[in-house]
C-alpha cells in the first residue's frame, strides 16, 4: 500500500520535474522573443494533455477537474482555455498546419464575433437548465431530475467538461466508435451527441458532420470554438457583477501613453479581442480573452501591455527587436 503510494508520488514528482525542465529549456533555447511564450504555451498544453489523459481514467478525477477549472477560471480569467484546454490545443495544431500550408486565416466581422460571445450564455443556460424541464416531464420528478443529472442523457457537468476530451481518451464511456474496423476516437462533444441521439446511423453521421464542421471552421478561423464555448462563462460573471470584481486576479493591463495603436495586438489575437486595442488603458475585462498573452508577447513597446497577477506584473511587453541582456 505504502509502496504503491510512494511509487505514485515518485512518478508524479518525476513528471513535474520533467515538465519544469522542459519549460526551462524552452526559455533558454528559444531566442525569438515573439515566439518564446507561444512555445512555452505549446509545451504546457502538451504536458496538460498527458495529465488529462491519465486523469480521465478515473471518473473521480473528472469532478475534481471540474472544480479546478471553475476555481482557476474565477480567479484567473480564461487562463485555462488559453494554456491547458486540449480542444484549444487541437485548434492550435490545426492553425499550425494551416500556417505551414501558407494559407491565411479569415476574420469574423466584429459584430458576429461579439454576438457569438453572447451566444455562449444561451448555450450554457440551455445545457444547465434543460434537465430540470425534462426531469419534470417524467413520472417521478424528483428521481427523474436526479437520474437526468447524474446518469441520464443530460449530464450538464459532463458537457461543460467536453472540450477537455482529448482525442485519445481511454475512458470507455467516452469513446465514440467510428466504425472503422473497431477504430474509435473520442472527440469533444461526440459523446454527447452519442448519448442524446441514439439512432445508430444518424448518430454516426452527426458525429462526422460535427467533426468536419469544427475542423473546417477551425481551419478558417483561429480558435473558432472558444468564441462561444459555454465553458468560458465563469469569468464573464466575475467581471460583470460588482460584488465579484475582486475575484479575477489575472488581468491584461494597458498603459495608454506607451501605446501607438499600431494594431498588432488586435491582429495577433486568436479570438479577435478588440478591447486591448480600443481601450484607453487599465485592465482589460472581457470574457472573450483567453489570457494566452499573445498580444503581450507581440507588443513591441516596452511595458505597454502587462500581465498582472494580483496587481503584480508577471509578464510585460518588451521591445522584442532587442535581445535582452539577461539571456
Amino acid at each position: 500500500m505504502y509502496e504503491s503510494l510512494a511509487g505514485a508520488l515518485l512518478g508524479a514528482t518525476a513528471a513535474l520535474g520533467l515538465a519544469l525542465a522542459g519549460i526551462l529549456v524552452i526559455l533558454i533555447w528559444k531566442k525569438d522573443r515573439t515566439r518564446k511564450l507561444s512555445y512555452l504555451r505549446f509545451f504546457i498544453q502538451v504536458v496538460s494533455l498527458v495529465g488529462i489523459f491519465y486523469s480521465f481514467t478515473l471518473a473521480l478525477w473528472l469532478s475534481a477537474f471540474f472544480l479546478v477549472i471553475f476555481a482557476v477560471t474565477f480567479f484567473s480569467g480564461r487562463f485555462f482555455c488559453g494554456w491547458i484546454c486540449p480542444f484549444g490545443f487541437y485548434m492550435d495544431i490545426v492553425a499550425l498546419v494551416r500556417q505551414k500550408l501558407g494559407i491565411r486565416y479569415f476574420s469574423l466581422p466584429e459584430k458576429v464575433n461579439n454576438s457569438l460571445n453572447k451566444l455562449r450564455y444561451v448555450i450554457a443556460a440551455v445545457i444547465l437548465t434543460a434537465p430540470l424541464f425534462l426531469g419534470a416531464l417524467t413520472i417521478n420528478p424528483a428521481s427523474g431530475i436526479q437520474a437526468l443529472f447524474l446518469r441520464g442523457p443530460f449530464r450538464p457537468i459532463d458537457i461543460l467538461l467536453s472540450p477537455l476530451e482529448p482525442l485519445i481518451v481511454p475512458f470507455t464511456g467516452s469513446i465514440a466508435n467510428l466504425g472503422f474496423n473497431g477504430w474509435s476516437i473520442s472527440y469533444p462533444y461526440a459523446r454527447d451527441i452519442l448519448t442524446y441521439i441514439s439512432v445508430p446511423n444518424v448518430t454516426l453521421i452527426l458525429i462526422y458532420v460535427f467533426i468536419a464542421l469544427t475542423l473546417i471552421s477551425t481551419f478558417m478561423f483561429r480558435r473558432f470554438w472558444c468564441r462561444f464555448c459555454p465553458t468560458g462563462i465563469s469569468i464573464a460573471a466575475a467581471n460583470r457583477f460588482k460584488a465579484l470584481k475582486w475575484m479575477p486576479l489575472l488581468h491584461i493591463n494597458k498603459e495608454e501613453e506607451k501605446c501607438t495603436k499600431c494594431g498588432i495586438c488586435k491582429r495577433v489575437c486568436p479570438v479577435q479581442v478588440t478591447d486591448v486595442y480600443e481601450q484607453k488603458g487599465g485592465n482589460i475585462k472581457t470574457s472573450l480573452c483567453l489570457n494566452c498573452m499573445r498580444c503581450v508577447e507581440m507588443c513591441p513597446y516596452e511595458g505597454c501591455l502587462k500581465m498582472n497577477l494580483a496587481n503584480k506584473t508577471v509578464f510585460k511587453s518588451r521591445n522584442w527587436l532587442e535581445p535582452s541582456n539577461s539571456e
Partner: protein
Amino acid sequence: MKNVSAEKKYMPEMPQKEIEELNSSVKATSAKIIADNIARMKKTDPNRPEGMKYFDEISNFFGQRPKEIQDAKIKGKKVIGYFCVFAPVELILAADAIPVRVNSGWYDTSKLGDRIVPVEVCPVIRSTIGAKMIGLSPYLELSDAVISTLTCDGMTKLSEILSDSKTIWTMTPPRVKDSPQSLQLWKEEIKTVKTQLEKITGNKITAKKLKEAIETMQKASKAFRRLQELRKGNTVLMGRDAMLVNQAALWDDIKRWTEKTEALCDELEMRIKDKAWACPPDTPRVIVTGTPMFWPDNWKLPTLIEEATPQGVLVGDEMCSSDRILYDPVGIDEWTMDDMINGIAERYLMASTCPCFTSKDGNEDRVNWLINKVKENKAQGVIYYVVRGCILYAMEYTRVKKALDKLGIPVYYLDTDYTREDVGQMKTRVEAFLEMLTARVDI
C-alpha cells in the same frame, strides 16, 4: 502605372541655360551649407563621436551616395522615391529596388516653386517643386517612380504637379484612422503599390523575399530604437547629430545604415560608461514637434537650439523626418503572404501619428506619443515648430498645448518659413524660451 504625359500641365517651359545656371548656383550654395552645417555640429560638440564621420559623408547630397545609386541603376536596379513615411519600404526592398525619400529641404528652391504655386502653400511643397524644376535633388532625379501619399492638400497637388515629369504612384490614406473600411482601403492601396512595383522592376515579390525585407527593416528599427534609447539619459549625442543619423536612414542603404548605427551606439555606450557627456547634464532638454525638417537647409531650428546661449539640447522629437521614421516595427504573427501584407498595411497606417487623421474618433496617438516622449526623455520644454502654410500642424497646436499644460510642460509655438532672413529674430525667441527653461531648472 501612368505614363508621363507629353503636355506639361504645370511645369513652365524654362530655357535649358537658365535651368543649368540656377542648378549650379543652388548646388554651390547647398554644398556650402552642407559643409557649414557639419562644421557647426563639430564645433558644438568638440568631442563628437567617431561614428558620426560616416553620417557626415553620407549626408552629402552631391557626394558618394547618389553615385552609388547611379551605379546600381546602371546595373539594372530601380530606384523608388517616396514622400511620406507612409510608403511601404519593405515592399520596395522586397522588389529589389532602392527606396529613397525625396522631400526637399532647400530654401532657395522654394522661391522657384513660387512661380507655379502661391506663396501661401507650404514651403516643403514649394521647395520640392522648385528642386524638380531645376533638377537639383539627386534622389528625385534618380528615382524611376515616386510614391506619393496624399496626406495633406499640399501633397495631393504636389503629386499632380510632379506627374508632369515623373511617374507618380499615389496612395490615398483614409482620414479616419480607426475604422474597418479605412484599413480595407489602405490595404488595397498597399496591394496596388505591390503590383506596380512588380511591374516596374520585373521582380516578383515572393513571401520569402518579403520576409527577408521585413527582417532587414526590423533590424534597422532595432538599431534606430537603440539610438533613441541612448538619448533618454544624460546627453552623449547632440540632438542635431541624432537627427542626422535618423534622417540618413531615408536615403542610405538600409543594411549599411544599420551596421553604422549599431557601431555608433556601441561607441555611445562606452561614453556613457566614461561619463563623457556631450554637454553639461543640466542643459535644458527640449523636444521639437510639428512640421518635418529636412536636411540640408532646414536645419535652422535645431542649430539655433544647440548653439544658443544658454544652450539647449534636443533630446527627441515627434516628427516624421526624424524620430518617427523607423520607430515602429512590422510585427508578423504568421509568415504567410497575406498576413505580411496586412502587417505592413497596419504598421504604416495605424502606427502613424500624422495630423492628417481626425482625432474626433478618439485618436489621441500623436498626443500620447508626445507625452510618452516627454516623460521618457525627461524633457523640460516643447517647441512646436510650424512652417507657414502647414495648416494641419498649425491647427493641432491648441490641442497639443492643452495636453502638455496638464503635465506642466511649457510649449512654445514657433512659426517660420523656408528663409534664412528670420534667423536673428528666431534666435531671440528660442533663447528667451531656453532662458525660461533654465530658470525653471534653477528653481
